[in-house]
């Protein structure tokens, strides 16, 4: 069985993003970067599946340039067997990226595409759904549990109303939610070993994607800040306020 895991490098989730001087992008120079947390969870899940099913091969894929080599090496250090870089601008819109991925996947033979449900920079939560539409494959979004059966997969998904349990067929697209697992720590020797592993490069032209973007980012700005209120020192006073609003 072949699993494709898409990975994206984002600003570390503990770092507050700053708007760059062009007013349209965020500062990345000198900022700590890492796995988009949802992608890391997706990769961890693929590795756990491979540990139970030895015939599983995991490919880690990202879209970008030479600056993305590190995230692919990290993916291989963590447990991906091979890695693919699609050479394109990594700030393309989500539909464009979904079309690129769909064109790539159509040429290969994958059984499962495991993805993070969203990236913590753009916060779109689009691409798994778009891929499902473009490839006409089943999808299971926001997974908090994935269990591989013979020709099908049992999943639990987190939705607004609770948890949905369902069985879906292969090939399929799965997106990870936060509670799916806790990614492992990568030991240093594995990081060093991964430095010499090959990265397969695919040019955007070879995928023949026809797309004209129709949405343009014009500016980034900071949200309005709430005014800080007052602190109440006295418990009795607080209880009175709370009883007033809770009635």
């Amino acid at each position, binding site marked *: 069985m072949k699993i494709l895991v898409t990975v994206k490098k984002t600003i570390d989730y503990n770092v507050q993003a700053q708007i760059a001087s062009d007013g349209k992008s965020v500062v990345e120079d000198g900022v700590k970067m890492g796995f988009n947390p949802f992608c890391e969870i997706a990769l961890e899940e693929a590795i756990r599946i491979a540990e139970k099913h030895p015939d599983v091969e995991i490919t880690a894929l990202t879209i970008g340039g030479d600056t993305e080599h590190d995230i692919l090496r990290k993916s291989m250090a963590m447990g991906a067997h091979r890695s693919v870089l699609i050479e394109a601008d990594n700030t393309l819109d989500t539909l464009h990226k979904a079309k690129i991925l769909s064109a790539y996947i159509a040429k290969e033979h994958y059984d499962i595409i495991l993805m993070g449900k969203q990236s913590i920079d753009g*916060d779109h939560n689009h691409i798994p*759904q778009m891929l499902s539409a473009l490839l006409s494959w089943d999808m299971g979004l926001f997974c908090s549990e994935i269990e591989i059966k013979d020709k099908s997969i049992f999943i639990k998904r987190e*939705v607004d109303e609770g948890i949905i349990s369902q069985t879906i067929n292969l090939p399929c697209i799965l997106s990870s939610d936060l509670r799916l697992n806790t990614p492992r720590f990568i030991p240093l020797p594995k990081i060093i070993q991964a430095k010499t592993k090959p990265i397969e490069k695919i040019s955007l032209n070879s995928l023949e994607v026809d797309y004209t973007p129709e949405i*343009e980012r014009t500016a980034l700005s900071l949200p309005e800040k709430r005014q800080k209120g007052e602190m109440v020192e006295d*418990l009795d006073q607080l*209880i009175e306020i*709370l009883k007033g*609003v809770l009635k």
Partner: protein
Amino acid sequence: MTKAIMIIPPHADSLNIQYLTRAAQKISDHIEAVAIGPKAPSSLPKVIDKLWHYPIDQKSELSTEQCYQIINTYFEQGHLITLSGTFSKELMPFLAAKLNIMPMTDVIAINTPHFKRAIFAGNIIESITSSQERYVLSVRPSCFKQEYELSPLNAHILDPLDIVSSDQSLSKENSDLPDLLSANVVVSGGRGFASEENFKLLHQLAKHYGAGLGASRAAVDQGYIANDHQVGQTGKIIAPNVYIAFGISGAVQHLAGMKDSGTIIAVNTDPDAPIFEYADIGYCGDLFEVINRLLAP
């Protein structure tokens, strides 16, 4: 002018439908609504021209593919707009990719053709301009608050398509509490409760006062409460009139889910907790003492 088709999610309440109407008015003067589910609303804001209903049986859940087929069959034209939430997160990008349209989701402001969305967990606002002829979008209701006079509207029933319902089964906690997304007052708890047992006190408090029950991601991750109570960037985005946060430190991703609330009241033992920067009223002290006083007869 291109009309706006408002897709009413299966579990949307009247107030959120009114906020969705406000957003729809910002993209068109002609609004039609479509409800896919067991029931269609019996009354809607007067500005809505027409109501369509695709009835499905109470027990079955439609898959995203099926919802797409319904929309695509009956609504070949018009902007498509719905509320943010997992229903729209599943449907809109899927629908948009099928229609070859880049969707705009979780939109917080509209001034066509300009739109705004929150990115980086709400720390940055992205302004975008669309040159599309047809929009596919979802909006955060709390950013389009407006109440309308409602009037009864008869639904036009859409003929059933030849599609099978899917085998999904939804397990849901039986709730004795008001819906989190539309509750007037929400009490919410975080890691400060320290155990699932202790968190039950907050449930009691919510029940006692008829408030909605929220939780931080930390509380959900610790297993104190089910995920459908989670408030935050990856949970529910809510804006009740009053939000009372007990033992929640106020991580950025949590703030993103509640910072548009009317009044925020925070109780926390840590005087430096970030939540106090956002609270209208803060109290530094023991949450159990406060809750026990509120529950005392």
